[in-house]
């Protein structure tokens, strides 16, 4: 179970729109309790006061940026969804396939506050003229699936889903789909393919899902946390939402931040967008005794390593981007001084290599090569030239060269690890550059 490490006194409706309703004991907030605390009020407001266009404009002004890691403006995305004459009604897909290494924020929302997500999806359906929503959930989130399923039934029974939602004359329903366990399903178009029952390979963009998504219809894919931000924007307005970040960032709202690794109090906090790494680490109680911070990943395995001095930066998309990494999911993973960066990189690349869908060449065949080179370096069997090769692989796995963002995400920790900790890599180089050769395959192993 994920836990929020702020107690109820701190979590106020006016400052913590994502978590103010959460119970301290971590039990889910179901429909009755949810309704008592402004639940579904935004849907009522949307039906009475807003049109698709005004809702989307509000969202754009609020500058809600995608919380799945991309940071793309949710309002802009919605404004690009095809609607109108001759265009079929499409789908809202919630990306709840939370599989980013070191990330556990969506899980909290799914397990403890499913109605907030449902509310956000109804608003998304209303704004994007969709008739069906899907929650594509990581298969291992068994508790979350059970809770969300219960919430969907409650919402349907209470008239928030199904035919004629809340007497509006508008139909919208949501189905839960649990994934079979591929990291690449977090990529929105691979997710759509998987949802359709196809191989989870990403699709080429353009056309974007808003033009031709699931089953060829206009489709919006948003992260859980992104959708959970929508109700408060609709209810309180863009200005209020912008103000939530308290001037710490140009971006609006709050963010579910988290810390994992060798800290005293790993966990999750809802904080203004742009909170610094130092403040976050402080909330986590600092490093465990006897450990000092060596490096950290700002938001999951597919973000670049940063140094302790970067902790003073605001944790928002633009600032972390300028520092050469990505905010990603905003859940930082700390690396202590006794941890080997080569092993860490090897571990990450093994993950990304295994999770490659196998569609494009650099990712499919380049990542496994990087893993083997890292294994060699880790074992002290590296050859001269291996590090250069890794660096050149990291370039070729970069944006634009591969089919989707999977390989660029894998390249980022690799490139930054070599950049900041080259000496650790060099320690693994024990051999000269030999002639090309392959290790003999032991008899009987094929």
């Amino acid at each position, binding site marked *: 179970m994920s836990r929020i490490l702020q107690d109820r006194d701190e979590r106020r409706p006016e400052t913590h729109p994502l978590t103010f309703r959460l119970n301290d004991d971590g039990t889910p907030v179901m429909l009755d309790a949810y309704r008592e605390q402004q639940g579904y009020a935004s849907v009522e407001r949307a039906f009475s006061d807003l049109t698709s266009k005004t809702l989307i404009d509000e969202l754009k002004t609020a500058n809600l940026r995608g919380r799945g890691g991309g940071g793309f403006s949710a309002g802009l995305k919605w404004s690009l969804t*095809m609607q109108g004459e001759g265009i079929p009604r499409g789908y809202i897909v919630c990306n709840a396939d939370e599989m980013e290494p070191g990330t556990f924020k969506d899980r909290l929302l799914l397990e403890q506050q499913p109605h907030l997500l449902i509310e956000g999806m109804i608003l998304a359906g209303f704004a994007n003229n969709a008739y069906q929503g899907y929650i594509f959930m990581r298969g291992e989130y068994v508790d979350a699936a059970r809770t969300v399923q219960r919430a969907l039934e409650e919402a349907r029974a209470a008239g928030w889903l199904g035919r004629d939602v809340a007497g509006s004359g508008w139909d919208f329903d949501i189905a839960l789909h649990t994934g079979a366990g*591929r990291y690449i399903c977090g990529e929105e178009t691979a997710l759509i393919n998987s949802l359709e029952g196809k*191989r989870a390979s990403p*699709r*080429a963009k*353009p*056309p974007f899902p808003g*033009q*031709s998504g699931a*089953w*060829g219809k206009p489709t919006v894919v948003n992260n859980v946390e992104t959708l959970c931000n929508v109700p408060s924007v609709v209810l309180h307005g863009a200005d209020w939402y912008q103000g939530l970040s308290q001037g710490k960032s140009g971006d609006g709202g709050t963010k579910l931040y988290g810390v994992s690794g060798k800290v005293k109090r790993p966990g999750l906090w809802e904080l203004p967008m742009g909170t610094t790494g130092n403040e976050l680490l402080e909330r986590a109680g600092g490093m465990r005794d006897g450990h000092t911070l060596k490096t950290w990943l700002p938001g999951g395995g597919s973000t670049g390593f940063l140094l302790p001095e970067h902790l003073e930066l605001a944790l928002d998309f633009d600032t972390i981007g300028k520092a050469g990494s990505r905010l990603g999911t905003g859940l930082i993973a700390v690396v202590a001084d006794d941890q080997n960066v080569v092993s860490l990189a090897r571990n990450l690349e093994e993950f990304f*290599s*295994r*999770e*490659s*869908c*196998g*569609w*494009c*060449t*650099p990712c*499919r*065949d*380049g*990542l*496994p*090569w990087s893993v*083997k080179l890292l294994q*060699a370096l880790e074992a002290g069997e590296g*050859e001269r*030239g291996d590090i250069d*090769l890794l660096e*050149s692989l990291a370039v*070729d796995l970069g944006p*634009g*060269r*591969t*089919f989707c963002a999977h390989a660029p995400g894998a390249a980022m920790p690799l490139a930054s690890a070599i950049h900041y900790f080259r000496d650790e890599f060099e320690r693994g180089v024990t051999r000269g550059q*030999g002639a*090309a*050769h*392959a*290790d003999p*395959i032991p008899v009987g192993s*094929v």
Partner: protein
Amino acid sequence: MATIHVDDRDYEVDGADNLLHACLSLGLDIPYFCWHPAMGSVGACRQCAVKQYKNADDTQGMLVMSCMAPVQDDAYISIEDDEAKAFRANVIEWLMINHPHDCPVCEEGGHCHLQDMTVMTGHDSRRYRFRKRTHQNQDLGPFIGHEMNRCITCYRCVRFYQDYAGGGDLGAFGAHDNVYFGRFQEGTLESPFSGNLTEVCPTGVFTDQTHSEHYTRKWDLQFAPSVCHQCAVGCNISPGERYGDIRRIENRYNGEVNHHFLCDRGRFGYGYVNREDRPRVPEWRERQRVDAGPGAAGVVGGTISLEIDDALDRAADGMRNARRVIGIGSPRASLESNHMLRTLVGDTNFSTGIAARELELLVRMNELNTRCGLPSPSLREIESCDAVFVLGEDLINSAARMALAIRQAVNAKGEALAAERGIPSWNAEAVKTLAQEAHHPFFLATPDATELDALAEQTYHAAPDDIARLGFAVAHYIDPEAPCPEALDDATTALASRIAEALMVAQRPLVVSGGSLGTPAVLEAAGNVARALARRTRPGALSLVRREANSTGLSLLGGQSLDWALECLTSGEADGVVILENDLYARADAGQVDTALQRADCIVTLDHQRTATWDKADIGLPAASFAESDGTLVSLEGRAQRFYQVFEPSYIRPETRIRESWRWLNALKVSVERQVMTPLTLDEVTRDMAMTYPALAPAGDAGLSAAYRVHGLRLAREPHRYSGRTAMRANLDVSELRAPQDPDTPFAFSMEGYAGHAEPRREVAFAWAPGWNSPQAWNKFQDEVGGHLRAGDPGVRLLGPLPGDYDYTRTLPARFAARDDQWLAVPQARLFGGDETSARAEPIQARMAETRFTMSRGTAERLRMSPGVPLTFNLGERRLTLPVAISDAWPDGVIGVPDQSGLSLVAPEWGHLEPQEVRA
């Protein structure tokens, strides 16, 4: 149009293309794998990266995949940019990580796109030093070899197999660097287009297993432009020969006909050319007349081999002694050979060798193709039709390649939808996503369920007469002046008006019918639909399926039916017969043929196969197959196409006396007339043929004359790296024989001669261009990649609509009524085994399904039959026993009889079941 700047040069290109398509069409070289001209772009392999700049001042630029980048006017790109070049070399390096580097023992070597692209990028040494991933291979049946370790994961195989050809049993499994392309379990690939995998696969994963048996590198094969003889579609092929055997059939690009793809019968059915038991010298058979009544053997005694002159003398003697000699031609022989036979025996003594009821249909089809107002479409034109109505043809079995074209036509709905959303048609996966299950309207009326049913908006499975009635009703709903069948039920009426509506709103409606069911009414119905469309709407097309390679040609050439010929012999009106490349037993009842041949005093046959008819001949003359001869065929489209001799059989086998049939027949004529033999060339025969039959006049220009030269050179049949010429006959004679001379065509039996792509030419023996050894070399011969040959696609069209206002057929069949004690036998086309010659090839035999009588569940219940139980069926004096198959689609009261199953059936006939087997 758009202007693009590539490496500082300006080019005009089609603005609707992607950069890869545009650059390849300009003749620029960009390496690629996953892109295919017929299958569009998917952006998977990342091999075609180029540098694109924002404008003329941008020096930075960024890498883009040219296959996924739309052409933009005033775009600046660089293929030669260092970063782009390095990236492309790196892509090859990654692809090679797990590739086994087994080129020396790989059958793809020498025509391998991966080899070509590797050389093109300049990648030459591996840095990967770790263990390679390996796969297990599968047994995929008699046609396709499987070696997954060579796979570079371009996904072309599954994209062709599933998306293009509609196959369901080849898929991609696994993920990351462990993607596996195969079947879910071992077994024969089910698609009748599986052979195209050998050319679609850029390396040696899927190879031609029939070629493995007698493998030769592409550069060591001798090729000629040829035309497939295994059905009437007229696909262009490049057969490759070594040591006197055909080693494999490659697709030959014809932008109007087959473009990149063939069916498996055509690709793998060549084995009959190589059969050991082929007649290679003239044979004389001693015979003693045995007047023991019908059924007794007409021929006893031995067979002796003859020299040419002796054979001609004896044949001429026999013919001179006969009172009247008739000739039986063949729809599987060339126009030239049939014409020479007709010249030999005289117009009034010539039979086409086609059964009367089939011939009647063929003649009618020619009339319909000229007198309905709708043209007969090429396959390319079929692909651009946007509504299709098929009457009575199970196309996968009767004209497989056409079925593949119709698939593309029906699926092109996706491209139309994509265009509305601004998605380019080359963005293959996006088009597929948007299209989902959307198809252009497609209606199918056949007795049995067919493989195309899944694409159809609605199917109609009924007896032939009811299929015809549906067609007549459709014509009526398009144009009320067309007659409407009486007593139509509501469902048929509704279907007919729905089809009529779909055809009328279409831009290019296509009507397909043909002779497979042997039912004139079905053809007439198709004719009425075509006429109604021609009167009411915009241009459409009428495609009529004929059965054999030259059925159309022979029906245009004219002559009597086979029934007439047999009757002439049986009645004694004629007592001599010359039979050209025709096994009469495959076309008429065996008893009838026996009687006719018994009565003849002189039987001369010419064939390249040892058939039952050959065994009855007094004189057998060994004829050349398509691989050893030249000639002209007319396809079902009405396209006259020349096929060229691939090799000279006597070069490797000096003892052979094989000659082209037209050459034999000319020699026979000279011998009969006691003239002095003068050399005759194909050009003379073709010219004479074209002058004799007005309908065939344009066919005289179907091929290149023997005098054709490029820069004064003949055209080479052999690639310039052809090896072993001085050694290949050394076991026979250490001195090298002069290469055979070819008086009939501009092609030389040699690597000497023009083989390039710079000079446009219609007839290409093998596709090769510097750096392009694989079939992808065809790019270099086309006006744009995937377009037409720069010199025009081979063939001339003979059938076109004549002006006029044509009347509807007003004789309509009554509703089919099942009978109590009789069953209507209906012929069923079949792909493997349904063709006389390819059925003699071993790989095809391995692929033939067991022949069965098909009946409906209702009929089976009435007869208390269950699947697999043997049933004996009587048609007059003919009888056949086959196991029963039950079909849910098949109409009651009708029994399906597969082609070439032993019961010669060219048209529906009422028959009886053996009394003891009627258990009802």
